């Protein structure tokens, strides 16, 4: 975080201050519904704020959005329905969790793809390493052949051809 960014955060905070979601004046009477609403708040962006959920913001828009989400929850909508309703009204921008759509495929698959690519690179490196260890250089082959040949009396050339992949 650089100073400039802190200034930004600071501006945010001074404008909005304090997590307002806990304000007793706003709460739903049913604690189970209130708890669900609070979890939903964390996924909803306060669009006039900078990268802030409506859970944390005291901006007017956040207050309105919280009221509307609470209303939907109180009206019996399930979480998915509330999310759909929000996206229909405000567009995808309102959700802090990007949707699992074709346009966002790269975003969601990249972490997995990176791990897989890394894993493949490691596997390839290990395979090369094994091959390098299994393959003798011509000098090594000659030396080995002379040792083996000297003991067993076989023709060293048969065993130590550098072209032979198993040598």
């Amino acid at each position: 975080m650089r100073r400039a960014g802190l200034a930004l955060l600071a501006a945010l905070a001074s404008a909005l201050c304090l997590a307002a979601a806990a304000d007793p004046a706003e709460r739903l009477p049913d604690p189970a519904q209130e708890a669900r609403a609070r979890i939903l708040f964390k996924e909803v962006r306060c669009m006039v704020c900078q990268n802030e959920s409506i859970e944390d913001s005291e901006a007017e828009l956040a207050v309105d959005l919280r009221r509307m989400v609470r209303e939907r929850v109180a009206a019996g909508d399930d979480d998915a329905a509330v999310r759909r309703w929000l996206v229909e009204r405000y567009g995808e921008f309102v959700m802090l969790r990007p949707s699992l759509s074709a346009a966002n495929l790269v975003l969601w698959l990249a972490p997995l793809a990176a791990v897989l690519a890394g894993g493949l690179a490691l596997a390839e490196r290990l395979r090369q390493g094994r091959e390098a260890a299994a393959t003798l250089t011509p000098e090594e082959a000659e030396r080995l052949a002379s040792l083996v040949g000297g003991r067993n009396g076989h023709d060293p050339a048969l065993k130590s051809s550098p072209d032979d992949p198993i040598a």
Partner: protein
Amino acid sequence: MIVEFGAFAMILALVLSVAQVGLSAVGRLRRSALLAGAGEGAALAGFGVLTLSFAALIYAFVISDFSVANVAANSHSEKPALYRVSAAWGSHEGSMLLWNIALTGFGAVLAWRGRALPRDLKASALAVQGLIGTVFLAYTALASNPFVRLADPPVEGRSLNPLLQDPALAVHPPFLYAGYVGMSVVFSLAVAALIEGRIDAAWARWVRPWALAAWSFLTVGIALGSYWAYYELGWGGWWFWDPVENASFMPWLVGAALLHSAVVTEKRGALPGWTVFLAIAAFSFSMLGAFLVRSGVLTSVHAFAVDPTRGVLLLAILLVFSGSAFALFAWRAPSLTPGGVFAPISRESALVTNNILLSAATLTVLLGTLFPLIREAVTGEAISVGPPYFNLTFTPLMALLCVVVPFGPLLAWKRGDLSPAVRALLPALVLGVATGLAALWLLTPRKAFASLGLALAVWLIVGALTEAAQRIRLFKAPLAESFRRLRGLPRGAWGATLAHAGLGIFVLGACFETAWKMEAAQTLAPGQSLRLGAWELVLKDVRRLDGPNYEAVTARITALRDGREVCALSPSRRFYPAGGQTTSEVAICSVDVSHLYVVLGERREGPGGKPVWLVRGYWNPLAVLIFAGPAVMALGGLISLTDRRLRLAPGRRREAQT
């Protein structure tokens, strides 16, 4: 006059930087010790001169010289002295000067302490470092000059944002910049090594201390910023996945990967290409951060430091430096030998796994930060990538990494054996699983993922200690023998143990606090109380209590647990007339390693027209560990930095022999 002197000194530093490039480069080409030495002298002098320049800027802030545009825009005569000083790096212009101080400072240390380096490599590295310095100093002098005078000076300054008037924030930027810019030396050494065509174990050993220092500074800088957000923003959040935070986190992740891959290159001569790649990437991410934070491409317009025109310049600097370094890398990489062979179960494999996961995590943070821009450019639709995305992608990668970490130090190089490592880690495994199950069973509300997080935290901490215990043969040898070994343990080993344990401490705090924090909020009249779990917060009174440059109301609140008074808290709300802002000063009471966190909210109309105040209380269990963890990690880095093996000059000795 002193301000003009500061401007002059800044220009002189730029000239010396140019001289450093020329002298070092020609010194290298002609193999002239005299010219290369002069290049080193220019590096030292450049830093000295720039320090004087910075001192002149601080002086202008301290005496509140509002004829300087930067002082008028960012300071105020009634501000406390500490914040007048820290305002010197609170603006775009001043912070660029601080960036340059760090840049020339690291260059000077390279010139002064880099005796172990071969002469050619050192001269090349100083030339590259000088080139970076030249470009950034030219940017500062031409596009971001903090010494510009106003023709018509105002009587009073516009003040620094009150939220930034805070001790943690006064020291946060210097640490952060030391971290960001420390990576420039790593970058210069990488480019120099590519030019020289020499990338081997000795090179990795020369790079590692710089990466360690930069990474440790960055750790402290990020933790300070996070702690500031925690107590200043007023709801106890400490990480928001804000683009600005991500900008500092990416070089940290790459730095962590680099530290581990450099070990592989140093000890086994393997992965030289990858280590060089990371060395270039680390500073590229630092420059990306400088661009992202200042250009306004990701944040809404903020008059403080955001400037699209200058942002384009920073982007150009980033593209030219990273682009040429990566191009050089692509050109030279095929000639690099892959180095030592290793088996699937080996310390190399564990460290490569670490690197895969850290790189994937960096990519995730990068993509999460930039994807809204990409989507908007491609499809024209605005989307948000917020904390829920990072929780679903970044967190699992890190959890996987936490599983692997304790194995690394316990596996042998080249060809390890898994079963002794598993046997050694059995206590860590048992304790971890027991912790996870206990959390699942005992803590309400029941949270499976957070319980898993606690299990991983214990696994990490005990795993780190296991490694240390193995090294000193604790319980396997007589205690005296263990003690003797303990004293002989290399500092580098201590560093790794501490850093890994620090990660565990952080995970413990972060998981526990996030999952089991409690909150309560209520409007209270004096004498009334608020219930928060086992706590009772009694509002005694609310009084007017003004400070030097603000007006404030302060509440006195007594916190009782089981009817016994444990602490007295005084949260307040401040109004700063200079900028017209209101801030909230939270009150925190530390109970062991947990925090009772109380915020005074707005005044409202109560029953009968009497005033009542909105009071929020938070119980943040184990919150201290969130910040203690990174502190332990940074300490590990610094201890490792003092290792004799890093100070010795293996390359120079080897050269002397040949």
